[in-house]
């Protein structure tokens, strides 16, 4: 059993290696290029900072709005996607399938399509992120609903409450702390994602990354990386602090 698994994994790896054209000699031959780039990267062009402020702000705005909208839409969907809170098997299967489908499309694909639909800018980015968020939050929250204690819900149903009322009274309070922490986690993901989806025109720092990349302006790229780094590290520590307080 283990032997067969190892053979299978090695086989897949070789297949993948051939597919992506693993090229170790290129690394040996060209590593000097990388050192030259890294030296450039270690000298950020701080003069570029004022030009990045609008894009930086837009990235933040996109992440905040998308997280807010995404979490509001996701909460009821999570209740529909959990076996513990949705008694109708048909609806359950339907919602789960739709959610899996939404989750399987990469955010960049959503962004590229939405840029065509609503135009270049933050709105398309926000919509792409909202879809991305729904996929994640519904999965995580419905999984924690599956694992919750059903005693209180059963009691509520036994007193004649309807399913929505029983879920509202018995399940929602149990799930709120984990919901809050998943939302914060999603916000962190959004910051990272919103720096990237701009590559297809969906607003934020990505548009800037695309510009400086095409002209190999590594000093400016380096400043953008530094900004993302500071932003993510600061927000990550703020959100982990907040998570401890909320949960």
């Amino acid at each position, binding site marked *: 059993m283990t032997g067969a698994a190892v053979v299978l994994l090695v086989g897949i790896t070789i297949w*993948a290696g051939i597919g*992506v054209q693993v090229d170790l000699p290129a690394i040996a031959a*060209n590593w000097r290029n990388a050192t030259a780039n890294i030296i450039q990267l270690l000298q950020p062009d701080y003069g570029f900072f004022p030009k990045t402020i609008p894009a930086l702000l*837009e990235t933040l705005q*996109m992440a905040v709005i998308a997280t*807010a909208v995404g979490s509001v839409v996701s909460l009821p969907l999570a209740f529909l996607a959990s076996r513990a809170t949705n008694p109708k098997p048909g609806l359950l299967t339907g919602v789960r399938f739709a959610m899996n489908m939404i989750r*399987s499309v990469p955010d960049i694909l959503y962004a590229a399509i939405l840029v*065509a639909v609503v135009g270049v800018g*933050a709105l398309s980015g926000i919509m792409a992120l909202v879809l991305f968020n729904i996929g994640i939050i519904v999965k995580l929250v419905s999984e924690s609903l599956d694992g919750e204690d059903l005693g209180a819900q059963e009691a509520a149903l036994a007193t004649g409450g309807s399913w929505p009322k029983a879920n509202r009274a018995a399940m929602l309070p149990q799930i709120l702390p984990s919901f809050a922490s998943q939302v914060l986690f999603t916000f962190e993901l959004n910051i990272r994602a919103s720096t990237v989806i701009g590559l297809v025109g969906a607003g934020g720092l990505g548009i800037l990354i695309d510009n400086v990349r095409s002209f190999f302006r590594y000093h400016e790229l380096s400043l953008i990386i530094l900004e993302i780094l500071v932003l993510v590290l600061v927000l990550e520590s703020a959100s982990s602090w907040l998570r401890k*307080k909320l949960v």
Partner: protein
Amino acid sequence: MAISTSEHPRTSRPVKPTSRLRTTLWLLVSLIVVAAFWSVKIKWSALADFPAQLLKYIALMLLPPDWSQFGEALNATILSVQMAWMGTVLGIIISFPLSFLASKGLAPRVVNAPLRFIFAVIRAVPEVVIAILILSVTGLTPFTGALALAVGSVGTLGKWGYEAFEGVDPGPKEAVRSTGGGTLALIRWGVWPSAAPDVFSFWLYRFEINVRASAILGLIGAGGIGKMLQDNVQFRNWDAVGMLLLVVIAVTMGIDQVSGAVRNKLIHGTWRAPRLAS
């Protein structure tokens, strides 16, 4: 002497205790959200046309999709999956020893701290930026994409790894120590057996993330889904984009199912999702 409710009838429900900190936090969060909505530069009027526009583009993409592009879409998706697999394997090879070195109690603190910092830095940088850096070494090839995903995977796998190793039950560890085992014996017999199922499921989970992340790497020339997307969006071949969309959804959902089943098996039937705190 029993507390009789008839002698002290309650006129109202007991008041819920409030926490000032909680109220402040909620106010703060709402304020930030309102500020973001108010300040963002968006023509909200565009939302009015949105449903009609969306239907129009969905029709352009899917009614019908361009079936002649099916082969190319499948090849592009497979290439992205190969990139993701290679990136995950390389990421596992690099991160596995590093996460032992980053665990408190298995390696000295002077080694723990810098490694944890490196993991945090990597987690902050998007894969596409890592790819731009690697580009100058390996050129515009799928291999560059795989390497970028590998580096990105080290950030998350490294962190999940040391968290799992530090969180294992101390009993087996004490048993190994009491019989005089060294650090290697401690890792092999005290830590690894209890952490292994979690670590395997992290690997699978990271592969699922990499499958999605590999799409974006095509935008800078690494090939795969991103390249085909860009080529066709540029010339507004929406039926080809629709074909790609369908193939990506089918392949990704298939991979998720297989990976979910394997994970289920590894954790012995109990469906416990991996901890997602990145």
